[in-house]
């Protein structure tokens, strides 16, 4: 009935992000040799698979108007726990299953406390973040190598794509996650309830939607994706370490926001977080290819590029928003004007 490609106020941010991403990639390709290569592009996925997964899960939380600060700490915890369990000889399948369950329980508890006791998610998940990091330090302060053959095989597996370029298993997991998230957000009642709650929680509840259940589910989901992200990250690093991904939750939030998800809730597409991750990823790649910035200039330039990106995005979006709506309105409201006398 409606082409999904139609540009409207709700998908404009996504389009703006894609356009800006392509521009950045083009700029990189022009200025740096070796930049314009399939592998450089694919590496954006390879290196950020875990972040894509986590940001996608977090997006659901953000769309309900909440936030989850515990995701990065959860990844660290998962990595330490996995490493320790594998060292103790627990079979990999059991480890993976175990940490996923842990993530689900952890997320559920956070969600339960948030909803049941009406405590702001920022506080609860900040507590969760301290807790997860703290527990991983209790398990081990040192970094632990993972030399389990299964993990190593998965970690080193390369799936060939075009030419000599390859991707890792994690990329597949990430893409599947994104696809599933898009489907869930659009085609399931749960997904729609998430948007409704973000739009107006009170209304959603008065409309008879299962607000509490959905909110708890959303945090549970985020717990699950951060555990999944943790597993992918563990494949990526083959090590467990309590200091992994310090401040990573900000990266995930930033990815969501750049991908057009409003922190106040209710708006955004689930493709957004991935685009956000790719955009920040390409900015970083440019910095790395540039290769002569001092530590501090690196920060300044990254921040500046981020700033330029966000401002351009806003310019594009608000341009679109300001377009006259008179024509459309006329069609909208063709009410008959007969008068009941």
């Amino acid at each position, binding site marked *: 009935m409606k082409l999904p490609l139609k540009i409207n106020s709700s998908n404009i941010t996504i389009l703006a992000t894609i356009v800006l991403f392509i521009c950045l990639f083009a700029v990189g390709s022009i200025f*740096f040799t070796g930049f314009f290569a399939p592998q450089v592009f694919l590496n954006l996925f390879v290196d950020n698979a875990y972040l894509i997964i986590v940001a996608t899960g977090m997006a659901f939380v953000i769309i309900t108007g909440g936030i989850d600060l515990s995701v990065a700490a959860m990844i660290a915890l998962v990595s330490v726990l996995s490493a320790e369990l594998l060292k103790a000889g627990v079979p990999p399948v059991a480890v993976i299953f175990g940490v996923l369950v842990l993530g689900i329980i952890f997320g559920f508890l956070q969600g339960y406390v948030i909803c049941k006791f009406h405590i702001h998610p920022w506080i609860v998940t900040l507590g969760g973040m301290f807790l997860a990091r703290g527990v991983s330090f209790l398990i081990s302060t040192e970094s632990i190598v993972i030399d389990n053959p299964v993990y190593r095989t998965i970690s080193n597996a390369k799936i060939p794509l075009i030419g000599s370029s390859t991707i890792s298993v994690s990329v597949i997991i990430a893409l599947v996650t994104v696809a599933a998230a898009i489907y869930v957000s659009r085609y399931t009642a749960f997904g729609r309830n998430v948007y409704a709650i973000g739009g107006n929680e009170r209304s959603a509840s008065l409309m008879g939607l299962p607000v509490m259940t959905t909110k708890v589910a959303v945090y549970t989901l985020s717990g699950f994706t951060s555990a999944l992200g943790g597993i992918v990250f563990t494949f990526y690093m083959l090590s467990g370490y309590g200091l992994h991904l*310090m401040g990573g939750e900000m990266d995930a939030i930033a990815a969501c926001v750049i991908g057009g998800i409003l922190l106040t809730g209710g708006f955004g597409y689930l493709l957004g977080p991935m685009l956000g991750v790719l955009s920040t990823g390409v900015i970083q790649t440019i910095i790395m290819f540039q290769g002569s910035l001092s530590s501090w200039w690196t920060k300044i330039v990254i921040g500046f590029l981020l700033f330029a990106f966000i401002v351009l995005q806003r310019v594009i979006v608000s341009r679109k928003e300001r377009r006259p709506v008179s024509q459309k309105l006329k069609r909208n409201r063709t009410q008959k004007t007969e008068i009941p006398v």
Partner: protein
Amino acid sequence: GCGGQTPAPAAAPAAPATTKEAPAPTDNKKLVVGFSQIGAESGWRGAETASIQETAKNDPTIELKFSDAQQKQENQIKAIRTFIAQKVDVIAMAPVVETGWEAVLTEAKNAKIPVILVDRNIDKKNEDLYTTFIGSDFVLEGQNAAKAMVEHLGGKGNIVELEGTVGASAAVDRKKGFDDEIKKHPDIKIVKSQSGDFNRATGKQVMEAILKSPEGKNIQGVYAHNDDMALGAIQAIEEAGKKPGSDIKIVSIDGIKEAFEAIKAGKLNTVVECNPLLGPQLFQAAKDLKAGKQLDKWIKSNEEVFSGQKAIDALPNRKY
């Protein structure tokens, strides 16, 4: 301030090269070295970065690709991938943590790019993935600090340990080396051990609190995992009305200029040097590699233990 704005000149006399001058690469193409730095979390690291960047700048045969990882291992991995994509001649890095390098270093190996580790090592299991390690041994530093402490205390007393960031490899190893050495002296006890996050403000705050705890009222020594925390602790001790350096002996690691000044002022007793001026050694190693030389697995950086007059004498030459 040790003049942070004007980084150490390239051929710093304080940083002797361990290998002899090698001939420049035969072709007149530059030697491209990609260096992945952890970040800029301390003055010490700033000095290391400056040393490497300056050395490269002053050597026309070298082109440096520098990448700052902002404290994140993921960024370092990405940087190394980028170096591989850019086909650099040598990859150098200061690994933020010991583990998690297997995949990316294997990629480097497959791409036939040699890897040099700087100032921190990686897990022993992956020894075949790098060519050489230039730097110091944190455990050894801890041991040296412990020996100095034992000496200052005359083999008897209570000490406080100010640890670095929980989980950081420097903190873990410096603690291990120190604690193991101290265990050999039954009359010396570590009565409190707390993390000061490697920074001065936290170090001071922690020391303040410890001095007010019951155990803290009777201590003779403080061991700090880096100079910054020691300098913070000195202030706390002074404010508590005690004399750092005499009432309470202080030993720390790193050897920044301010620490030497503190020794001169009699407030700090011993500093175990951990040399950040690794630039010359690094590029020498890179050139040697290119020239086909076989390198030692571990090129130790030249480091000493400074106390008393030795420190005062060394002060004018300190670069960072």
